[in-house]
């Protein structure tokens, strides 16, 4: 029983972090109807920025995370402006394909840029804290614990923005109908950039938080990104609630698989679940793609 609880706790911890990334991805999809294939690379970018700030410039690691989030927010906005604008100006015929390919290209570009700038070696920024925290059933490194707490706070802030602020209302309006929202005076173009920036910044936040735990290297974002895709399909693409529940579910299911089946195939369980969901409930567990459900 104790071993089971320990696995479950670890699953929930990992789930919270997946949640932060998946929420960013679903936000971008919800507002822009674009699948951001470079999401894992924003995660990587966040990790490298926190590395540069805390290790090379010698500043406090918390500052590293904050700077990473803001820097990637700006980078995300610029990316959206530079690469995705053609979709809204009707310059491309195949909009979905264009968005996929352009973000996919961006992802390859960013991985190789990291390789050129930092080299292929794995690095680690200053951890937020040293030592170990005893949760009773499981001892967790304090770095990991802080990462989860901060991830939950970041998710909370995002949910607040979406549900309680004017910005959130406007974003939700765009997600429901881009054209109508423009008619009532919402600047969909500017808000689209902001949504992309927030989404990218969330991935960067997750990357910066996890950098000391899982190390920093150019292809670090690939597996987390694929997990995020699984989560948002699981929880219905574009659904905010779905992303959070989906992430926690993924964490729990992985630990259940480890406990009851075999620990060797941990990553396979989430994909198995995904296949089942796609076969039996192709729209995901939380309905359609409206994201205030």
């Amino acid at each position: 029983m104790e071993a089971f609880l320990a696995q479950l706790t670890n699953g929930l911890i990992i789930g919270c972090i997946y949640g932060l990334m998946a929420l960013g991805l679903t936000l971008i999809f919800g507002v822009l109807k674009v699948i951001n294939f470079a999401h894992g690379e924003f995660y990587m970018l966040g990790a490298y920025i926190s590395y540069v700030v805390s290790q090379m410039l010698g500043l406090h690691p918390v500052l590293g995370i904050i700077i990473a989030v803001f820097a990637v927010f700006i980078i995300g906005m610029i990316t959206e402006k530079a690469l995705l604008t053609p979709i809204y100006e009707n310059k491309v015929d195949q909009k979905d394909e264009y968005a996929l390919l352009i973000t996919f290209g961006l992802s390859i570009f960013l991985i190789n840029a990291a390789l050129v700038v930092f080299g292929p070696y794995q690095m680690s920024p200053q951890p937020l804290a040293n030592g170990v925290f005893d949760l009773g059933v499981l001892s967790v490194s304090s770095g990991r614990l802080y990462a989860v707490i901060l991830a939950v706070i970041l998710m909370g802030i995002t949910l607040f923005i979406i549900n309680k602020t004017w910005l959130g209302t406007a974003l939700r309006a765009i997600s429901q109908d881009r054209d109508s929202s423009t008619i009532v005076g919402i600047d969909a173009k500017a808000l689209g950039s902001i949504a992309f920036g927030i989404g990218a910044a969330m991935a960067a936040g997750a990357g910066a938080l996890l950098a000391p735990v899982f190390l920093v290297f150019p292809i670090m974002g690939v597996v987390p990104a694929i997990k995020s895709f699984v989560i948002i399909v699981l929880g219905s693409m574009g659904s905010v609630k779905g992303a959070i529940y989906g992430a926690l579910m993924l964490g729990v299911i992985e630990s259940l698989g480890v406990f009851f089946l075999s620990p060797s195939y941990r990553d396979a369980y989430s994909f198995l679940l995904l296949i089942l969901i796609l076969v039996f409930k192709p729209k995901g567990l939380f309905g359609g793609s409206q994201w205030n459900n």
Partner: protein
Amino acid sequence: MRKKISLLFVMMFMFASIVGCASSSSTDGGGNSSSSEDVIRIGGIGPLTPPGSPALGEELQQSMQLAIDEINADGGVLGKDLELFYEDSAGTPEKGQSAMEKLVTKEKVVAIAGEGHSSAALAEIEVAKRNNVPFIVAEAWSDSITEKGYEQVFRVAPNNSMFSKRVIEFIQEFGYENVAIIAEDSDWGIGNVELMETQLEEKGIKYNSIVVDRNTKDFVPQLLELTKENEPDILLNIMTGIGAYLVVKQAHELGISPTAETAMFMGGADAAYPEIWETTGEASKYVIWQTPYSPKADFTELTKPFVEAFKKEYDRNPSYVGLHGYDTVIILADAIERAGSTEPDAIIKALEETKLLGTRGEITFPLEKGPDYHNWLPDLLFMQYTETNQSPDDAEIVFPKNVSTADIIVPE
């Protein structure tokens, strides 16, 4: 909606397959302006990008270049200079195979040496065999590489049977009675676990083991599973690259190992790289690891001069990978000299008759079929880090007893 999902999957699939090659970059050692008439072209291959271990590939390249420069300064081979063409294998079969093809067909090298990952080496030896090019494997340990009995393939690294045999000898010597093994799902990892399990069973030593996905980054579930209602005497970390460091880090955070009750043994070469301290910090103090070389153990009269030359050229100490890389080149030069030609069959015949002092001992290649076919087996040293941020060269040799410098320290 449905279209988007299916598109998403196509892209995910492409993404996964492209990332492996996205990070490709290849470097040629030395210029390639000279014509094939007046130089002998030697091929080098090794991982310069992940998922392979770039530190390993780079050191192979540097040590091979060093040997070639020395030989050229001494008048070359058969009156010609040697030239190195080094290709990136990324440690994967696909990339390794195409890098080999490029060396053989485009660069037209007469012999190839290198590689540090078994999965890649297993693909590469097929290319060597198909094109009849002599290939000395420098640092990949899977038994199958030499067990296949390809006459083109030689090896100067330990093979898995040797590695696992020495690990079990070590376990017996120190009386460990309950062994836990965490291993990566590579040929090297799986091969080792199987060999160790057989031997532990024969010796009647209790064990449990888990094989994990190399791309995983959270090993907490697996570590918890290994220690569930069980307190092993030693945890064998049979991983390479990032995984090896993360297992050390996470086992330390969980309070599993290294502790007074459970020692930690790192099987991968990564234990000897400087990154270990930045990535794992204090977790690696008391970790036991293996290496075929330590400056505290002097093997032959060539060892010190090589180490000095490497330090002078690259401003850091070589690990044993460097010695392996250096040896492959002097072996090839010696064989080509004795063969009197660069014909593959002549080189292979000369290689089989090798009797040469290397940096690690006198090198000969056994001809009896089996895992040791064409495989010269070096010594293996068991080391322990006794201080945080300790240089690998300052670590103590704890086994074998005839060269050991200290006893194992058990943490408080």
